[in-house]
């Protein structure tokens, strides 16, 4: 088939397609809603949710994964569109970690050194890692599926940021249940879980996001 003939065939296919932003928002939104519902039904929020005082640490624990997911959403969308620069979204990805570092520094100043270890290790670290990881898996699958309909020219990086988006969303859901309010705890264990999801996203994306 000559190129001119192929052009005629291609031009005849004018079915409209959804934008990458709409596809990603739909896939992530639906999956996050399902995961959150399942989580609340099976595991439930922290028992003292109604009575626990809203401190700055509590607010930070809930806010930083949301901030991470939001900035990762913006960044990954730009990565999924060819020829688009990350612009401010690259530096914006550092906002959540910076907030977290500030919280950790404040906690270290606030707590006496002997209390650092116990605060960091907490009581529920394995549960935290396991549940964030388990919730992130379907989110990562949905995110990578949606991004596969985009056209990333940097599949590994896109997969890694998709992992931050999925891991951040999973951590934000888990935080509803988590009773460990020390920044030392939620920086380390949420952080480890999210980074693991990001590594998985990079590895999978490297192969599945090619087109």
């Amino acid at each position, binding site marked *: *088939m*000559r*190129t*001119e*003939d*192929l*052009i*005629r*065939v*291609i*031009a*005849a*296919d*004018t*079915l*409209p*397609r*959804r*934008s*990458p932003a709409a596809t990603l928002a739909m896939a992530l939104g639906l999956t996050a809603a399902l995961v959150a519902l399942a989580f609340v039904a099976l595991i439930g929020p922290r028992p003292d949710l109604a009575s626990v005082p809203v401190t700055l640490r509590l607010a930070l624990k809930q806010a930083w994964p949301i901030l991470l997911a939001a900035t990762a959403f913006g960044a990954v969308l730009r990565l*999924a*569109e*060819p*020829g*688009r620069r990350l612009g401010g979204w690259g530096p914006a990805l550092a906002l959540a970690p910076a907030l977290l570092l500030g919280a950790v520094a404040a906690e270290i100043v606030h707590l006496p050194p002997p209390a650092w270890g116990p605060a960091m290790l907490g009581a529920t670290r394995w549960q935290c890692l396991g549940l964030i990881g388990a919730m992130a898996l379907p989110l990562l699958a949905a995110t990578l599926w949606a991004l596969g309909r*985009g*056209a990333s*020219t940097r599949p590994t990086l896109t997969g890694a940021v998709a992992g931050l988006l999925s891991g951040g969303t999973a951590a934000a859901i888990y935080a509803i249940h988590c009773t460990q309010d020390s920044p030392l705890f939620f920086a380390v264990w949420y952080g480890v879980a999210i980074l693991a999801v990001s590594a998985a996203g990079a590895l999978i994306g490297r192969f599945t996001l*090619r*087109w």
Partner: protein
Amino acid sequence: MRPETEPPLEELLRAANRGDAAAYAAFLRAVTPVVRGVARARAGGLAADRVEDIVQETLLAIHRKRHTWREDAPVRPWLYAIVRYKVVDALRARGRRIEVPIDDFADVLPAEPAPDPTERGDALRAIGRLDPRSAAIVRAIGLDGASIAEIAGALGMSDGAVRVALHRGLRKLAQLRSRLME
């Protein structure tokens, strides 16, 4: 590169997104020499029909990813990113490692068509692997110049069903073409 009288690429692609097949064909015809120029410049020594294979693969990729262009953005950075990615990908699949720096595009001279790659193999082989109905539709439009309505009448399908079959066939074709190459 293009006659001055033609509307800008953005206008053509926007119209194409609204379902204007003629504008879409004009868009594809306008970008083809650019694609061919890049492919030829980078393919150093690859036979002309091979280069034309890469051009066709890239056009299919542009088509499959056309929704990733944002209508308020200029077309060229988007187009060049796709062309660069696909040409590199196609050459790599053929066992050639090459780099395509971004700045190269400014100097690329649009190239004239090469000999027809097709009778020789890959294109027709890929079409032959489609389901019979999609293959018939692709052949009818590409080789016989049939319209959607004519095909619908001939195959006893609705216009919409023909469009969907064509859409799926092109998606499959793009995958097959990338895979069959080596």
